[in-house]
């Protein structure tokens, strides 16, 4: 029994199993009976979910370290590649696998015409994400990142429709530039420090904390990851890709792939770069600003959409902005909140994209105006959508709220003036947008606009070859999973954040903490791992209720727009109208514009690190 347990605790298994199964399944895909790929893929996802949960539980006391091929560090020098499981990485990988399992159930039979290729891509996609969460080597991180990205590119264009192809091209070009930025960052930091293992890098950087090369490397690495994390001004690809990808793929994109870029930023900051003062400054200035801008821009853009998947895509930008705010505050409180909010948001947003998939399959459309009142016969999906909208708006239940409360406390402690209004705008706008669609599609509220024909995309529909209950079960499961007992989730988030922040020079490389340049790192006392501070009611505890109420009000306003007096509408069109039009114009759909915005972001990074 203990031998079996020791085998199950090999951190390599959750990536080795999907990679092997994916390869095998591809080689025999032509001869497999139709349902076999579905069953195999779901079982693999569940198995990996269980293995990651086991690893994450066992790593609560100390990280689980595994050096490939037995190449352990010699005299404190890392010479091999390691997988290191911390509670944060382990639970995030577990969540990724769970989301894949739910998505594969949701898409049961959806892609059966295509000889298992869809399932192979999904399994490889999952392996890439799990590897990204568990690896402890910078270049290895890049390889997993690329595996995940290439699978994502292929899945986006999978439907081979016009809009899907051009969305996939935008996505691929922008994200590939991000990958090369990461690679450039790796080259720079290696040339300065001469290591690729996170602990080796942290040790080296602590010796040259003021080196401009280290700062440049952080700028490139975090820019690449923030392109994946869809933060202003790198966010444009997201709306194009998420709205044209098949719905099951969008579930993964919004639920896990975008958040994993931000997880990468948090992990690199705490395990590698935290000793560099300029990097600390960049977190508080540039990254915080990007998070605030994303929260606001994503929220406003979400309100303007009538294509429901595109609306959800912009709400992902907004909520990822909130996640980045939590990371950029660089405090344990903020990090713990962010990790929880990542899970809660992923579950809720995944469920909402599943509702979009149900609309595409059963109602044969995704346009809010065109589907007015059409959703009554699938009312359970409407309940899921409405509840999801309330959760996005900050309704104080479940994991999302626990995370948000921690982030709110961190914002309060750090005296970040702009962050709190930015978070509020993001919550209210995204919640209102989803609630407005719920009201129109499922309750038949709002006017008959006469604009039903002007749908923003070509006619869309996804195969309705599955029973409704099969699609509703995973949707409901994801929503219910986001509502566990808040206190347990809070404790878990705190432990995960503490371990992520812990310097690993001693535990990984076997170097004494008392000597060498690494000793100046902010060492976390061991007691901090156990002592979870009491949940002090945040000074902003009534804010979630206010956000929920405002979102409901804004949704009602959106639905009764035609009843407002003409002067009010004209006032709106003269004052806010041009700003909103300018904002929408930036989302041009042209890859050239998006690449230009990347250079603008890089230039801002450069200016702030040189003069800030």
């Amino acid at each position, binding site marked *: 029994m203990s031998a079996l347990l020791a085998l199950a605790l090999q951190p390599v298994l959750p990536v080795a199993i999907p990679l092997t199964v994916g390869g095998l399944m591809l080689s025999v895909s032509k001869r497999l009976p139709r349902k076999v790929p579905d069953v195999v893929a779901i079982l693999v996802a569940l198995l990996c979910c269980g293995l990651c949960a086991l690893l994450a539980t066992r790593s609560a006391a100390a990280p689980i370290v595994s050096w490939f091929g037995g190449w352990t560090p010699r005299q404190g020098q890392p010479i091999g590649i390691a997988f290191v499981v911390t509670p944060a990485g382990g639970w995030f990988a577990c969540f990724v696998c769970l989301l894949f399992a739910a998505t594969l159930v949701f898409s049961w039979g959806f892609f059966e015409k295509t000889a298992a290729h869809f399932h192979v891509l999904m399994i490889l996609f999952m392996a890439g994400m799990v590897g990204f969460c568990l690896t402890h080597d910078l270049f290895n991180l890049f390889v997993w990142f690329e595996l995940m990205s*290439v699978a994502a590119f292929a899945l986006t264009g999978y439907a081979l429709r*016009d809009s899907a*192809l*051009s969305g996939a091209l935008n996505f691929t070009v922008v994200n590939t530039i991000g990958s090369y930025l990461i*690679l*450039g960052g790796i080259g*720079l930091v290696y040339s300065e420090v001469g290591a690729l293992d996170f602990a080796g890098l942290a040790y080296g950087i602590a010796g040259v904390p003021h080196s401009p090369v280290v700062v440049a490397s952080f700028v490139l690495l975090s820019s690449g990851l923030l392109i994946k994390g869809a933060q202003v001004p790198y966010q444009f690809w997201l709306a194009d890709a998420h709205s044209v990808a098949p719905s099951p793929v969008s579930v993964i994109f919004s639920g896990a792939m975008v958040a994993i870029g931000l997880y990468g930023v948090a992990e690199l900051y705490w395990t590698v770069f935290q000793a560099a003062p300029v990097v600390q400054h960049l977190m508080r200035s540039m990254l915080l600003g990007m998070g605030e801008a994303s929260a606001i821009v994503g929220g406003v853009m979400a309100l303007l959409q009538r294509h429901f998947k595109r609306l959800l895509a912009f709400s992902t930008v907004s909520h990822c902005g909130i996640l980045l705010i939590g990371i950029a505050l660089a405090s344990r409180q903020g990090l713990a909140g962010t990790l929880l909010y990542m899970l809660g948001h992923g579950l809720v947003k995944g469920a909402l994209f599943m509702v979009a998939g149900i609309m595409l399959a059963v109602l044969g459309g995704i346009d809010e105006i065109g589907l007015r009142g059409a959703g009554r016969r699938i009312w359970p999906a409407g309940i899921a959508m409405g509840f999801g909208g309330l959760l996005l708006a900050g309704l104080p239940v479940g994991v999302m709220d626990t995370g948000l409360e921690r982030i709110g406390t961190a914002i309060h402690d750090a005296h970040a003036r702009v962050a709190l209004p930015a978070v509020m705008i993001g919550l209210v706008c995204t919640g209102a947008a989803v609630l407005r669609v719920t009201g129109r599609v499922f309750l038949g509220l709002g006017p008959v606009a006469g604009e039903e024909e002007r749908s923003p995309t070509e006619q869309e529909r996804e195969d309705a070859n599955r029973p409704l209950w099969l699609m509703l079960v995973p949707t409901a499961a994801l929503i219910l999973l986001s509502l566990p007992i808040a206190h347990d989730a809070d404790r878990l988030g705190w432990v995960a954040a503490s371990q992520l922040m812990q310097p690993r020079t001693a535990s990984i490389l076997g170097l004494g903490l008392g000597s060498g340049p690494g000793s100046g790192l902010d060492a976390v006392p061991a007691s901090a791992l156990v002592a979870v501070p009491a949940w002090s009611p945040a000074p902003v505890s009534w804010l979630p209720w206010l956000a929920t109420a405002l979102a409901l009000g804004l949704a009602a306003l959106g639905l009764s727009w035609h009843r407002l007096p003409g002067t009010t509408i004209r006032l709106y069109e003269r004052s806010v109208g041009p700003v909103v039009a300018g904002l929408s114009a930036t989302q041009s759909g042209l890859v*050239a514009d998006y690449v230009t915005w990347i250079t603008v972001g890089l230039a801002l990074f450069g200016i702030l690190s040189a003069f800030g």
Partner: protein
Amino acid sequence: MTGFLLPLLPLLPWAVAAWLFGVGLYAIVTSRHYVHLIGCLSVVQASTYVLLLAAGYRHGAPAPIFYSRPPTLAVDPVLQALVLTDIVIGATVTALLLALVLQLHKRRGTIDPERVRPMRR
């Protein structure tokens, strides 16, 4: 005459990498043909090759081929391995992009990035 430039010589590969990156991005922004654009993406990628090889270069050191006992000095083999992986990844992405462009051409008859947008607004 060029003696005063010699100390700047070690900076040359870094400057070349930055130049390739910038010129590649500029060409992507101004491109009107997706196949051309994919070529420009390879130029951006070439900047990472130069950067990585420059980071691993040791002046006067031989190639990292060891027979029995490692010499005291060699060019860093780790970065050469990274460049190889980089090339493989670049080939994958290029192949995927070209396949997408081919499908786009079949359906739309154009591969001008300005004329294919994912969504009408």
